[in-house]
């Protein structure tokens, strides 16, 4: 007992230290977001840098109006839909691939490096190569077809490697035990494997969503007649940049935080119920 108490103190100190570091780290990675947040309340005559010229909700109201260049709301909708599709496909493909890689198979090395190649090909050239192929086939590019195709190529290696980390030293004896008890492959996957790898699948999907939502270079020639959000924002930079952009950024940050809180709430409720 006597040994325990200083030990607990030490642990508490370590934990506090790490917590402080975490907060500093958050401040660091949120960096420019603070300027963005403040400037989204810029006065009507101000711009996207300091000094502030008054204080208003003018730019927040502008968010709801149609934009002058492009179609911000529509582009955002398309980007979110695209990101969701990429999220699902990335999670699915990376789980399947990582499961396959638990066994050795022919050309597994080739497949491994091919997946990683998606990470390495410079985006503008992949976009160009695809665009030229589509032309030869006489197919029209669109964000939900050709755009989706290359976004998955981009996100897949991330999801796949995350799943590799998850299956790394994964104990297959649990699965074996289930098999020995007569469970078929689906049941084993559903009841044993999947619950164990859920965090990884979620993470792979999140990677997919995030990477797709933010992707610009790969979409330049493959979005077709309608812009995704990054393309739209890029186009708006050929004009004066208005603080509407910051209102949009702040809004999406707040929205993300809200979604995380809702997610936490749901998780807590479900967790309690399952107890």
């Amino acid at each position, binding site marked *: 007992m006597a040994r325990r108490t200083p030990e607990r103190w030490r642990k508490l100190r*370590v*934990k506090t230290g*790490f917590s402080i*570091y*975490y907060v500093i*780290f*958050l401040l660091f*990675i*949120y*960096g*420019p*977001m*603070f*300027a*963005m947040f403040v*400037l989204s309340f810029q006065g009507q005559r101000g711009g996207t*840098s*300091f*000094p502030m010229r008054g204080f208003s909700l003018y730019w927040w109201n502008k968010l709801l109006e149609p934009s002058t260049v492009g179609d911000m709301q529509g582009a955002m909708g398309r980007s979110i839909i695209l990101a969701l599709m990429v999220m699902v496909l990335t999670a699915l*493909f990376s789980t*399947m*691939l990582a*499961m*396959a890689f*638990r*066994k050795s198979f022919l050309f597994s090395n080739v*497949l491994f490096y*091919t*997946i990683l190649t*998606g*990470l*390495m*090909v*410079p985006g503008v*050239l992949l976009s*160009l*190569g*695809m665009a030229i192929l589509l032309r030869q086939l006489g197919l029209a590019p669109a964000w939900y077809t050709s755009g989706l195709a*290359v976004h998955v190529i981009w996100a897949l290696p991330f999801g796949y*490697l995350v799943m*590799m*980390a*998850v299956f*790394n*030293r994964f*104990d*297959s004896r649990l*699965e074996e035990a289930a*098999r020995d008890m007569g469970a078929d*492959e689906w049941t084993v996957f559903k009841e044993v494997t999947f619950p164990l790898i859920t965090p990884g699948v979620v993470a792979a999907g*999140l990677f997919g969503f*995030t990477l797709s939502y933010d992707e610009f270079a790969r979409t330049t020639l493959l979005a077709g007649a309608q812009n995704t959000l*990054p393309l739209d*924002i890029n186009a708006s930079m050929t004009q004066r940049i208005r603080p509407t*952009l910051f209102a949009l*950024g702040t809004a*999406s940050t707040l929205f993300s*935080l809200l979604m*995380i809180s809702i997610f936490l709430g749901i998780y*807590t409720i479900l967790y309690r119920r399952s107890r």
Partner: protein
Amino acid sequence: MSKVSELYHTGLIGGQPAPDDLAIQAKISHTEEGFATVWLITPAAIWLILFLVVPLVSIVIFSFWENSPQGLSPAFSLEFYGEYFYTKGFFDPDADRFLLPSVFIRTLGSTVYFTLVTMLLCLIVGYPIAYFLAMQVQAFKWQLALFLLCMVPFWTSYLIRAVAWLPMLGRRGLINQALLGLGIVDEPVSFLFYSEFGYTMALVQIYVVLGIGPMFFSLAKIDKDILEAATDMGATPFQIFREIIGPMSLPGVAIGMIFIFVMIMGEFATAVVVYGGKTSTAGTVILNYYGIANYPFAAVNALMLMLAMVIGIVVILRVVDIRKEL
């Protein structure tokens, strides 16, 4: 419950990884179990062939084409490869460029150097965060929440965040205002932005989270009972780290480093926004030639960049074979 976790981690007490040959044997013996490999890989493989391999082949073919005022013409020309490597006067001791590699090789070299420095910084900054999330935070719910909190900046378009760098770090930016307000400096400091310092900080800030994810996952799988047991047996925190935590998290570190390595190698936008375009990266070179429709040379540059990336990844995987440790 305790039984399961015991099963789950047998062989790890003492920090010895399971012998490789044993793992391989286990692998072989299980080949008939689980879903059929063919079905698991076919959908993704088809997708990869159609949308990656085929365009990639066309990029390779492009790199041999000729570029004339009339546009591209199919050919087998090594002209652009020559252009990439050769500098006038390279072998001529009297030339002022004697043994000076071409600007493209130098740019690639400086990109690699810069990437390595930033990777190291990301590791130093990010590992403790992954450790904190995995080891210090108990509930999975909070682990996930705190991790997601790190992801939130990424859900604001990069292009928007890029505009916000200036009002944050610039002469009239928030930081300078704070420094002036606190009386730490008398006039705005300019080294924060459009500088190598600002550029490095920005890269770490943008990419560190990519490394944290995988590191967090491999750390989270370490059973805390083992650490407890090791402590009880009198192991010092350093010993525990060296014997158990370090080796166990290595695959995660390797994967995280691959992400960061590849992202920064291909980076082009941050150099413009945060460094004020005062440097060239391999990525900006590709973009410059792509921009003037010299696709063959852009392709050559891209292939060389990819080659450098492959070498980097192979080296990382040599150190930690993430596939062997499955």
